[in-house]
């Protein structure tokens, strides 16, 4: 035995490192095992570096429209490698930040791949093949997920790429086919299109951002089309073949079974994620998976084996960083013996950082219908907001869904330039079980985009002032 801990966290993404810190704050001796970079996908290859790229795209967008603001800008050109290196630098800084947090919280960072050998016993193999055993009173599995692979799209990092390659491309694609219009596909579609790539975005389901409210997704679709993105919804991808490096022929089948032929120089595959459950020794210790391959957990994230917890992507449900962190807190509070409630998955916000941004929490209008919940809906378009007009972002709206009987906030959907920042008050409102009254009677500062939230609440009662 080399060392023993109260809690060993496997994986240092936003689920894992938050769980480790919470455990340490709770007075436990904690170690975190990471086989790659601290911070996991989120910090290194996901949330954060993509936001850096998207900011570059937004700046490009502003420059393109600088004349609208009375500024003449000449000779704008794109330094693609610089955009990439900025994004990598941001990721690196964040990863260092986690390193600092681990040190500050006296958490041992163990580099290597972890495997459960027995309950409470973990074998860590480092990059050089060196092995060591660590003992764990409790184990938290936070190993994340990886892009789903399809034999018809052989990922090679040049013709066929995933988000991960897209974050480290040396050159900008000229014509890009993006398969899948979830958050990842949509964000890259906006990013590449804004930088001048011809983008074709294909989604099998009838709407882009399939998990979002239909009306919001339609608004985004209209905006994307206006921005020049070729969007194909309810469209299947037929044969996709690299006829030679950098020349890929793709056939799409639209809803009417009409064939659309495209030639692109790259294909970005963004269709689903699969949990990272391999080589963890799960079967050996008896940790069970659900029928979709995610680790089965109870309301407090405990797996079928007592003392082994799973959080984040590997435990299924929404594959979101903040959901992982929140589950990490739940698991640790259970270990510390003061867990009261599991996570309420109806209160996990979702954000997409294209422009206009899309942000939501709670039920969509369609979901309310399916659940037979009578609702009152309030909307407020940013075109009626003074602030939106002043900053030149009048696209989008706030849509709030309230229960008809008690007036409680059931769902909040925002599309607009700062949607993701505006959502927070609605998450809080839902958590506090607020009704339209608390929202409409909270005085919102003028002029702000957030006034639209108050107005939408008013509108649900037919009392909006500015529409």
């Amino acid at each position, binding site marked *: 035995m080399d060392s023993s801990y109260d809690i060993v966290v496997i994986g240092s993404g936003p689920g894992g490192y938050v769980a480790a810190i919470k455990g340490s704050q709770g007075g436990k001796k904690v170690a975190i095992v990471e086989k790659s970079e601290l911070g996991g996908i989120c910090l290194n290859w996901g949330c954060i570096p993509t936001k850096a790229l998207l900011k570059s795209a937004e700046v490009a967008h502003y420059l393109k429209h600088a004349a609208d603001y009375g500024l003449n800008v000449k000779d704008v050109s794109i330094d693609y490698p610089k955009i990439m290196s900025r994004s990598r630098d941001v990721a690196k800084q964040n990863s260092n930040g986690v390193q600092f947090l681990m040190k500050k919280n006296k958490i041992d960072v163990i580099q290597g791949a972890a495997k459960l050998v027995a309950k409470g016993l973990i074998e860590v193999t480092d990059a050089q093949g060196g092995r060591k055993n660590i003992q764990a009173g409790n184990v938290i599995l936070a190993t994340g997920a990886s892009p789903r692979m399809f034999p018809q799209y052989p990922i090679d990092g040049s013709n066929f790429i995933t988000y991960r390659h897209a974050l480290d491309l040396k050159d900008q694609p000229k014509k890009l086919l993006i398969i899948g219009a979830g958050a990842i596909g949509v964000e890259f579609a906006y990013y590449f299109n804004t930088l001048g790539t011809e983008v074709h975005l294909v989604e099998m389901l009838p709407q882009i951002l399939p998990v979002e409210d239909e009306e919001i997704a339609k608004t985004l679709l209209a905006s994307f089309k206006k921005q020049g993105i070729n969007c194909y919804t309810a469209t299947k991808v037929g044969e996709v073949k690299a006829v030679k490096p950098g020349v890929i022929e793709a056939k799409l089948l639209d809803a009417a079974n009409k064939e659309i032929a495209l030639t692109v120089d790259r294909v970005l595959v963004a269709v689903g994620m699969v949990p990272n459950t391999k080589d963890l020794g799960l079967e050996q210790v008896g940790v069970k998976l659900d029928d979709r391959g995610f680790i089965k957990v109870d309301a407090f994230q405990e797996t079928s084996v007592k003392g082994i917890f799973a959080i984040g992507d590997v435990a299924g449900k929404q594959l979101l960083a903040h959901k992982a962190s929140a589950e990490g807190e739940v698991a640790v509070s259970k270990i510390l013996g003061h867990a009261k*409630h599991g996570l309420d998955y109806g209160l996990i916000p979702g954000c997409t950082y294209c422009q206009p941004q899309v942000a939501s929490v709670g039920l969509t209008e369609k979901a309310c219908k399916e659940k037979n919940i009578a609702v009152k809906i309030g909307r407020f378009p940013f075109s009626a907001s003074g602030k939106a007009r002043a900053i030149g972002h009048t696209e989008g709206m706030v849509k709030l869904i309230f229960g008809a009987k008690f007036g409680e906030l059931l769902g909040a959907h925002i599309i607009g330039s700062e949607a993701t920042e505006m959502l927070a008050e609605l998450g809080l409102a839902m958590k506090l079980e607020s009704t339209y*009254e608390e929202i409409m009677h909270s005085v919102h500062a003028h002029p702000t985009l957030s006034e639209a939230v108050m107005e939408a609440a008013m509108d649900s009662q037919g009392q909006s002032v500015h529409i």
Partner: protein
Amino acid sequence: MPTSMLMPSLSPTMEEGVLAKWLVKEGDFIKPGMMLCSVETDKTTVDYESMDEGFLRKIIIPGGSPAKVNQLIAILSEEKEEDISAYLEKAMKKNEEQLAAKSAPKAASAPAATSNGSGPARATYAPAPPVRTATAVAAPAPAAVVAAGGRVKASPLARRMAEDAGITLDGMAGSGPNGRIVKYDVENYKPLAAAPSAAPVKGKSEGPVQRPLYGSLAPILPTQDIALNMMRKTIGKRLLESSQGTPEFFVTMKVDMGAVNGLRSQLNRAPGYKVSVNDIVTKATAFALREFPTVNSAYYGDFIRQNGNIDICVAVSIEGGLITPIVRDADQKGLGQISSEIKSLVAKAKAGKLAPEEYQGGTFTISNLGMYGVDEFTAIINPPQAAILAVGGISQEVYLDGGVAKQKDVMKLTMTSDHRVVDGALAAQFLSALKSLLENPVWLML
């Protein structure tokens, strides 16, 4: 700088409370979250937690005294030795002005204003040593409806749902942070059984499959931690105090119930009456208490109050706990009246609709487990009362009558007494008087 500490409003209907006991003393350093004092509200006794920090410099309202909501109860200061005299003078003056302003309009509009309150009612309701005054008795409050803006912590949705369902949030256990009542709590709130004659609970049988209670097919029962509601907390606290802090002793006596049974069957032939054994025991106890007023007393630490009126608490089991509604002046009332009052009190108790006046105060308690097949048991004194009577069931016993075996109906009575008030011989004499009354129930007609 000194600051004022005010009487908190601990329930939506609370207008006044009794500051039962200080848990800190002058000079103590108070931190947020520390228990400061116990406050008896119209519903229950609550420990009041500090939200402030500072040195407790002066206690204005001593333990055992009543105070209105927001009345000045103590002065805090930031520094231990700080001079607070100027502040104290100002605060006292302001306090007096407020009290004067409060009581003036109240008196003018009394009938309307008290409809939601726990009027002062009879002095014996409060355990503190008050003086009997001639204040008008307030109309019994209707079951408190959700008081918007009260200090019950509840989400806006929970408030609306409760209002819609006609449930009061007061006393409901909240599962949110710091006991905040949320949607889940209202949805899962089980109203107290509507009628005392409720059929065996079918509550959970909504599912299609009725699973057996026993045997290998029975579902495995989950282990669960159940949060204490207000009632359980109160029961726990009061009875623990009682059993730990009272020198108790028990005296049991067997009563021949033949005569009571005979009387009951005769009484119940009267149309519209159904007098129970418990009704007769209540009446007989009231008579016995008249004979032994020492038993009808309360212990207050530095004095014993011998109560002039005989108000008998009858323990009623309700969902989630128990409550002891009161038959007032039981010695003055006929069996018919006692019987119908107990019936109505029990129904109200089970529906959770007892007004505070109906369960606060009382001078003696009767607990009857006879209907559950209990032969005899001991009960814990309901403080500050001096004694409690535990009534067992009626069973048959063989006895010899001139060498011939005969059968008689007997019932066992066990009295728990507080030895600080009632001595052994007195308890025996009291039970003996009660036995005589029950064996000669015709005396109850006097």
